[in-house]
């Protein structure tokens, strides 16, 4: 099958604050097939968010290529949904109007947009909070608003940057199940960045391990667990533990490298 998302030797450099050049992503090659759920793990600061920004078209690669749907990314490709790591919902709009923003931008009438939005507010479990402003919500609720805001556009390509890291364990489990349920019918290609290896395995068809900065793909590990999955159940199976051990072996080295460098920088 043709890949929906493809990075070919993509490299991204930034000008660092000291005036030098910082390479965030180096020579990164990866593909994601239609309908595939790829989870990405890697040490903090390695360049995971930067990778997503290349795919979304918000940042052009410094070298190499990013392709979506077979054509090079110029500007934001059609059908991309991107849930940022940071809060990005509009503080001056109510929950409902935040979720309705996407359809409104895309030309739906106010009534249509609101009807769609109301449906998605329900699906992320926020019914009753439609008229609240973001400052009246908890951090986890704001994340759910962002999720609904992204999914209401029915993206074919879904980029998620640590969407659940602000949630408590119970809510996170619920949201993970919910995400799998919503995704299973959609046929969307997903890149899901997370710090949590368990989450990566529980959700993904494949787990990509990134190297310490600059990021490239260190290894790609298929997750042959059957679907539909119940994230709480699947964690307890023997296969899960085996996969976990295998990936963690690979990830640990990178985390340690990153930590040593961090310590060296501080010293």
């Amino acid at each position, binding site marked *: 099958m043709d890949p929906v998302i493809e990075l070919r030797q993509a490299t991204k450099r930034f000008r660092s604050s000291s005036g030098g050049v910082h390479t965030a992503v180096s020579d990164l090659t990866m593909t994601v097939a239609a309908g595939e759920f790829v989870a990405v793990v890697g040490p903090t600061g390695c360049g995971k968010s930067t990778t997503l920004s290349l795919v979304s078209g918000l940042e052009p690669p410094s070298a190499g290529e990013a392709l979506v749907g077979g054509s090079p990314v110029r500007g*934001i490709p059609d059908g991309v*949904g991107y849930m940022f790591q*940071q809060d*990005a919902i509009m503080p*001056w709009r109510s929950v409902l109007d935040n979720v309705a*923003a996407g359809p409104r*931008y*895309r030309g739906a009438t106010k009534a249509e947009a609101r009807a769609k939005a109301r449906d998605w507010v329900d699906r992320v479990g926020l019914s009753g909070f439609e008229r609240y402003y973001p400052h009246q919500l908890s951090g986890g609720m704001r994340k759910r608003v962002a999720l609904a805001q992204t999914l209401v*556009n029915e993206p074919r390509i879904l980029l998620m940057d640590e969407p659940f890291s602000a949630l408590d364990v119970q809510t996170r489990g619920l949201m993970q199940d919910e995400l799998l349920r919503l995704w299973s019918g959609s046929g969307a290609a997903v890149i899901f960045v997370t710090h949590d290896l368990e989450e990566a395995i529980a959700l993904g068809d494949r787990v990509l391990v990134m190297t310490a900065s600059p990021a490239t793909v260190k290894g790609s590990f298929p997750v042959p667990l059957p679907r539909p999955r119940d994230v709480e159940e699947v964690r307890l199976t023997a296969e899960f533990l085996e996969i976990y051990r295998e990936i963690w072996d690979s990830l640990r080295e990178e985390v340690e490298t990153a930590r040593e460098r961090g310590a060296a920088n501080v010293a």
Partner: protein
Amino acid sequence: MSHDTLVQPVTAESPLPDPRRAATKRRYTVWSIRVLLVVAVLGSWEYSASTFLDPFFYSKPSLVWQKLVDWFTVGTSQGSIWEQIEVTLEEALGGFVLGAIAGVVLGILLGRSRLLSDICAPFIKAANAVPRIVLASLFVIWFGLGMSSKIATAFVLVFFAVFFNAFQGAREVDRNLVDNARILGASRTQVLLTIVVPSATSWILASLHSAFGFALIGAVVGEFTGADKGLGLLINHSQGTFDAAGIYAGMIVITVLALLAEWGLSALEKRLLKWRPPAAGNEMQI
């Protein structure tokens, strides 16, 4: 140790003060001290002007009050007081609205366009450094004694006050919000209207408070420079006839107008910024 001392629930007879009662009492104290202060100042002024100060130069509260009553019942040297108020308000309002619109539009445009702001920066800085009050004289020559010269003076004063805030507000827009909107499908214009303008609103509203004061100053100074109607002319006329009470009375009328406008703007601000968390210290708690 007895149980009574250990358990200290908040019961009806516990010495916790009722917060609402406390607030009422506080308000009462604040207001009575304010009134006392006003009475003390006015009283000592009245007393000094009746004993050792010359009321011809310094006037006194009773004379100022008399003047105000005169103006509102009999009329002023220039005709009905209401007409003067109306003229000044119209000029101030005209300058305020035009200046605010121009300031907001230009501020946001320059704030969002690197190129434009780089080109215009030196001109704007230079224009801002010009002593703008002096322009009032120029405007009288250009536009004559009528309203338009005062509107122009108010306009330049308001424009710069609003412009710099709108500019700053448009610059400080959260990048994530803009990126998020673009991903959600917003065009450039939609980003401008749904992200940049609302982000800059609190900055702009903050500047509008002082801007209306500036608009009034502009109108009054304009009238001072040369006019056939208005509160500034009235004050100018009082100055010409050494009528100190008239100057005070004019000041009071203008102050009241400014306070009323301030109150209206605060109400508008509260409405437009209802999405903001309440300021620390007066959260909506039970």
